């Protein structure tokens, strides 16, 4: 399997990324399951960015999460205005989910391997334990304790939703794709 790490950014990828972002936005707005920590919701939308990332590459994963989250903040779901630090962190998480692209072949009916889950967990870890708290402290001067409590909760919740929801979608997608053709090229 010879895939470019960043994927090919052709017309289909662009459209899929756009609709992925719209899906992300719909789920972000409508499927809010509250978690015990205030202002932190269980967002199953990260399953979408994980799935689209694995299917189309890191740039696609980044844009799905970044555009989806940014639009969410514009449309009115974001009551705090555009919270750039979390928007950027979402994008970073999406980018890392997309790194699984090179190591998986959902397109040809291969089930997602362990790289899919590793990249999602690592990506969410970097996004919510590193990027979001640091940007929160730099931009919004939030106390260290709060940002790390919120960041850690977000990490746990979003890593689970990326792996479980993204995993369900990836398995279901691989199951309906025809496996690699038995025909040889002459």
């Amino acid at each position: 399997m010879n895939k470019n790490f960043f994927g090919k950014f052709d017309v289909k990828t662009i459209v899929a990324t756009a609709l992925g972002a719209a899906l992300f936005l719909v789920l972000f707005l409508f499927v809010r399951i509250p978690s015990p920590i205030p202002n932190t919701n269980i967002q199953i939308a990260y399953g979408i960015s994980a799935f689209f990332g694995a299917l189309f590459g890191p740039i696609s994963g980044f844009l799905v999460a970044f555009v989806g989250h940014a639009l969410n903040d514009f449309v009115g779901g974001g009551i705090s205005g555009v919270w750039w630090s979390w928007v950027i962190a979402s994008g970073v998480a999406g980018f890392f989910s997309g790194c699984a692209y090179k190591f998986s072949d959902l397109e040809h009916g291969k089930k997602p391997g362990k790289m899919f889950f590793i990249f999602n967990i690592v990506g969410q870890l970097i996004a919510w334990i590193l990027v979001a708290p640091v940007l929160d402290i730099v931009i919004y001067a939030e106390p260290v304790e709060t940002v790390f409590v919120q960041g850690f909760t977000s990490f746990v919740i979003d890593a689970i939703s990326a792996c479980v929801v993204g995993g369900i979608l990836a398995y279901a997608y691989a199951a309906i794709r025809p496996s690699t053709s038995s025909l040889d090229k002459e």
Partner: protein
Amino acid sequence: MREIKVFSYVDKGTIIHKLSGVSKVLCFLILTFASMFTYDLRVLLVLTMISLIISYLAKFPFGRYKAFLLYFAIFALVNSILNFLLAPTYGVEIFGSAHVIYRFNDFYVLTQEELYYQLCKIIKFLSIIPIGMLLFYSIHPSELASSLNGIKVPYKACTVFALALRYFPDIQKDYNNINLAQQARGIDSSKKASLSKRIKNTSKILIPLVFSTLDRVELISNAMELRGYGKAKSRTWYSYRPLQKRDYLAILFCTLVFMAVLFMRFAVVKNLFWNPFI
């Protein structure tokens, strides 16, 4: 069923509406960045005033803030309480003094500094909200992509933005339909179901939704490919408006505001916060 409209664009012909989309997006970014760089209460109040004045010039319906303010009040209150519970003396750490109002015990001490810090934060949130709501109110939907391209975002990423906005209502409708169909089958994903059931049932909406969306991707990308999308390195836009004198003036104004904020931060106060306690 709740439906959300992304754009509420009506051309009211005000001075703000007449600006080119490029300058709207650019001014929005400059002003939000300006508020990001400061925690000075006076500066934040001025920024809030500026964004309210701009909203007024654009004839923004101020009634729309009402519904919003309630949500914001809850959000801000919860955030403040959480901050106080986790770091009750953060204000004292920042300002280096402690004017005690009430002492709950040795750890939880309510100080003027803490309240002042929380106030600054709330004003900081509030300062960019009118401008954020204004952007989608005053920009023509089909001008957004060309405007983003105008500030040198790669045009394929602009297309992603534009398409996402274009298909958001369709996917929202799909989501509602699938949700209702599943509820008719007894699969409940509303608040009435228990948490674990809710998560499980939501995934039953997700699979048909995602797969019907992927079908749609084929359709749209074929149509775009047939029209030769993405063959050239750059792209011209039907809705692009060249910058005029008033656009340069608007950008100049916002840049001056931004410079003033930076000047206050790095030359006058020399600190992120302005300390009224000394």
